């Protein structure tokens, strides 16, 4: 059994009366690429900050690489790469100076890797950070995050604000890094297409509660869209267990079902559906159905 590198047990955080994260239990094994999904304000960044020991939990505990989040030692921090939201960099420096600054603190800093990453992104180390475009900043931030050769990489919405071309390039860099054995990546994102491309496990957090934590394939197998055609004029009440969303178009309903299996199709036939057809939906569609309120019937 592979080693658990990220663990959260009952992690809870209140901001005043508001519960930002509620009893979150999570374990991520070494070598996993974990996509942490959720809508804005669902508690992704709060969870990440608690895991990194930058925010105290109200209850529960988190651990990275076996070390309690509240007491992460400098040695453990050096093994964890962290890219925070918005790719913040020290704007008063040049790219090379920024790298020199960080190199002082990371014993495993790989200068040749960093130089090759800059060359790949066509960035001159003499350029000032303040003059970089948003995409270039993201690339520099990623290169700086990966140069210390971290065992665990935590990316907080890494593709935020990037155009599709830069995003794709950015993701390819991440994919390249994944290929190195033993690396674990935990990243939060809104862009489900990206998650689908790189993640092998996902967690969905909604209003601070982790509602799903499973393999990507398992999620897609369990949450399915089904199209049902009923007789003209017939629109039965579809009160099914695990029903996430229904969209009606005349006598045709498109349902999103959690805990999907073949038996669910028979249930629908039992409700009078003449035709029942499971559909292939992307992660983005399933995520929206999974996290949007049930009242989304149209």
């Amino acid at each position: 059994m592979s080693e658990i590198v990220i663990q959260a047990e009952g992690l809870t955080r209140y901001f005043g009366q508001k519960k930002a994260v509620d009893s979150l239990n999570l374990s991520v094994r070494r070598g996993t690429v974990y996509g942490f999904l959720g809508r804005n304000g669902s508690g992704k960044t709060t969870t990440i900050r608690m895991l990194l020991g930058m925010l105290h939990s109200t209850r529960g505990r988190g651990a990275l690489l076996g070390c309690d989040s509240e007491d992460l030692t400098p040695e453990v921090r050096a093994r964890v790469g962290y890219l925070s939201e918005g790719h913040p960099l020290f704007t008063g420096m040049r790219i090379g100076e920024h790298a020199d600054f960080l190199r002082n603190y990371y014993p495993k800093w790989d200068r040749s890797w960093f130089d090759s990453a800059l060359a790949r992104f066509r960035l001159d180390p003499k350029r000032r950070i303040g003059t970089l475009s948003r995409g270039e900043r993201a690339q520099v931030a990623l290169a700086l995050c990966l140069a210390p050769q971290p065992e665990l990489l935590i990316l907080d919405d890494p593709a935020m604000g990037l155009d599709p071309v830069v995003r794709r390039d950015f993701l390819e860099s991440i994919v390249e890094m994944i290929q190195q054995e033993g690396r674990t990546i935990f990243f939060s994102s809104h862009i489900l297409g990206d998650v689908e491309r790189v993640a092998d496990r996902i967690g969905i957090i909604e209003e601070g509660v982790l509602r799903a934590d499973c393999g990507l394939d398992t999620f897609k197998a369990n949450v399915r869209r089904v199209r049902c055609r009923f007789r003209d004029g017939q629109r039965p009440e579809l009160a099914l267990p695990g029903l996430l969303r229904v969209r009606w178009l005349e006598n045709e309903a498109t349902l999103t079902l959690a805990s999907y299996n073949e038996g669910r199709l028979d249930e629908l036939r039992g409700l009078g559906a003449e035709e029942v057809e499971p559909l292939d939906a992307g992660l983005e569609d399933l995520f929206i159905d999974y996290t949007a309120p049930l009242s989304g019937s149209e």
Partner: protein
Amino acid sequence: MWPIIKKELRENASYLLGAFAIALFFLDCAAFDCGWILLGIPRLLMSQSTRLDPYSANAGFDHQLSGTCSSICLVLAGAIALGQVYQERRRRTWPSMAHLPIPRSRMICAKVLAGLLMYLIVCLPMALLVIARLNTPGVWPGPIYARTFLSMLGPFLAGAMFYLAAFLSAFRSARWYATKWLPLIAALPAYLLVGNVTAFFGQPLYYWQRLATHYLLYNCLASLAAALLSLPLVLWAIREQARTREY
């Protein structure tokens, strides 16, 4: 520690220049009021009275210059401390700093050292001006010893104290209406203590003959007591901040 100090200086260089210009301008105003003209601008702003007080302990010494120095030091110290913390927050670079693999206490120490260095850089011309002023014949009523400069060091040291308090206050992840301001409150007695002690020890020798009845002695003792009372608060604030990586 040096890379962080260098980074702080680099990040705050433009603000430092602004602070430097403001300090020089106000000092120019004060100096003009003492009879000095550097830029000529103060003519419109300040009265031309010399403000010499023949009855004070510092007979002959201009209180205008001393008062201006005190105010500028406080403002600059506060601005540098707040700038260091809020610039980091505004640029969202604090998470990267907090994640650096170094002990938190070392990072805070480096930031504080950088802040004090910036404070020193900004205050240096002021200090030189004050020393030059003190050396002007007729300003100081008696021979000038090294100790004489102590009384003029007061505002600068007090400013440094205020810097520490402002830095800790800005750094605390608390709310202003809750406990964020505690270090600032604790700094008040420390500020008074530094001011009074330097004023006391900087007195001309003949004032020491009446030491027991000298009001500065009682000022010193009172502010020492207040500082000792607030010491636990300061230590608590420092300890608390050294332990957390919250931002």
